[in-house]
């Protein structure tokens, strides 16, 4: 009974964890939820575990529970990997903002403001590029930074 309670407690923890992760990693959360729920069921109805194990060809029911636990562990590891990737994206965004804010401009003549550029240069831009707001495909700037860089080219 003690073993059953410990396993149930641990698997219930996995269920809660999976529920909590649904927003961030839906696929991993669903798989973990299914595996943990099945684990709890088989812990309390071991005869079904044995029947299912025999059907699946893994031997005893307890082996099946161990395999389920291994699967859950792998899913949790995958989720941790995905979380690391999210952290990397945040670091990237931070590094990008820092890099642009600290850009080292080359030493040249001051650059003309955009509004005073020569007409022939603007005319050379495809018309489609000059009507950003009119395009159905127009999207907000995807610069990854929200402020104008402090450094300019000049």
């Amino acid at each position, binding site marked *: 009974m003690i073993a059953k309670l410990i396993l149930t407690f641990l698997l219930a923890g996995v269920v809660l964890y999976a529920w909590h992760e649904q*927003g*961030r*990693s*839906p*696929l*991993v959360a669903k798989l973990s939820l299914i595996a943990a729920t099945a684990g709890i069921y088989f812990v309390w109805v071991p005869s079904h575990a044995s029947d299912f194990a025999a059907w699946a060809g893994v031997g005893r029911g307890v082996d099946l529970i161990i395999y389920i636990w291994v699967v859950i562990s792998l899913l949790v590891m*995958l989720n941790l*990997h*995905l*979380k690391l*990737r*999210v952290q*990397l*994206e945040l*670091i*990237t965004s931070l*590094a*990008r903002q*820092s*890099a*642009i804010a*600290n*850009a*080292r*401009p*080359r030493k*040249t003549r001051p*650059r*003309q403001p*955009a509004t005073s*550029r*020569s007409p*022939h*240069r*603007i005319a*050379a*831009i*495809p*018309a*489609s*590029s000059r009507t*950003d707001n009119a*395009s159905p*495909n*127009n*999207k*907000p*700037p*995807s*610069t*990854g*930074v929200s402020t*104008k*860089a402090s*450094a*300019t*080219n000049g």
Partner: protein
Amino acid sequence: MTTRPNESSDGTWVVVPAFNEAQAIASVLADLRRTGYQIVVVDDGSADATAELSMRAGATVVRHPVNLGQGAALQTGIAFALLQDADFIVTFDADGQHRADEITTLLSALVVQRADFALGSRFRGRAANMPNSRRLLLQAAIWFTRATTGLAITDAHNGLRAMTRRGARTISLRQNRMAHASEILDQIAASELKYVEVPITIEYSPYSLGKGQRSSAAVDILVDLYARALHQ
């Protein structure tokens, strides 16, 4: 004959992502400077003198505090160029395998064909000294990209491309490493903006081959592409 779309060149920015390129960056930038376009080198946390050499060569330098990968460097360069009011943005590799004089061809294609993206194609142009293993790997990448994006491209993972400001604003690379080359094509397809392919020359050298992707990187790219899809 090609027409130069921007005589003043103020509005065209060439983005050069660079990581430990001290050996080649000076000559690459010397060629680029002759084009007259604005240059931004994104030093991706190099441990060598890439940033200093780039500054000395007359480029604006944006420096990542840590190494993040070529995709991250490109996105930083594009973001920087947009903040400088760039009208056209060109991406250009730092290892010397691209030809600076072909930038004008790409920009002309954007203007003449009224496209938002001009993608360099070595298979429509010329690939000098390309190893057979690289050719096979690229053919597999082209097949994969055609299947996943629907774009009828003849080259993939080619670092020489040009885009308009509007095109650049639809690009938001989240793949820091080499999977960005597939991601950018995905985003071009998703934007439904017009793209054209332009024949270009790529000259492989022992140096560029040494700096380039290993065949095993294909596995990393696939993992990166699909791991990204597993989380929000």
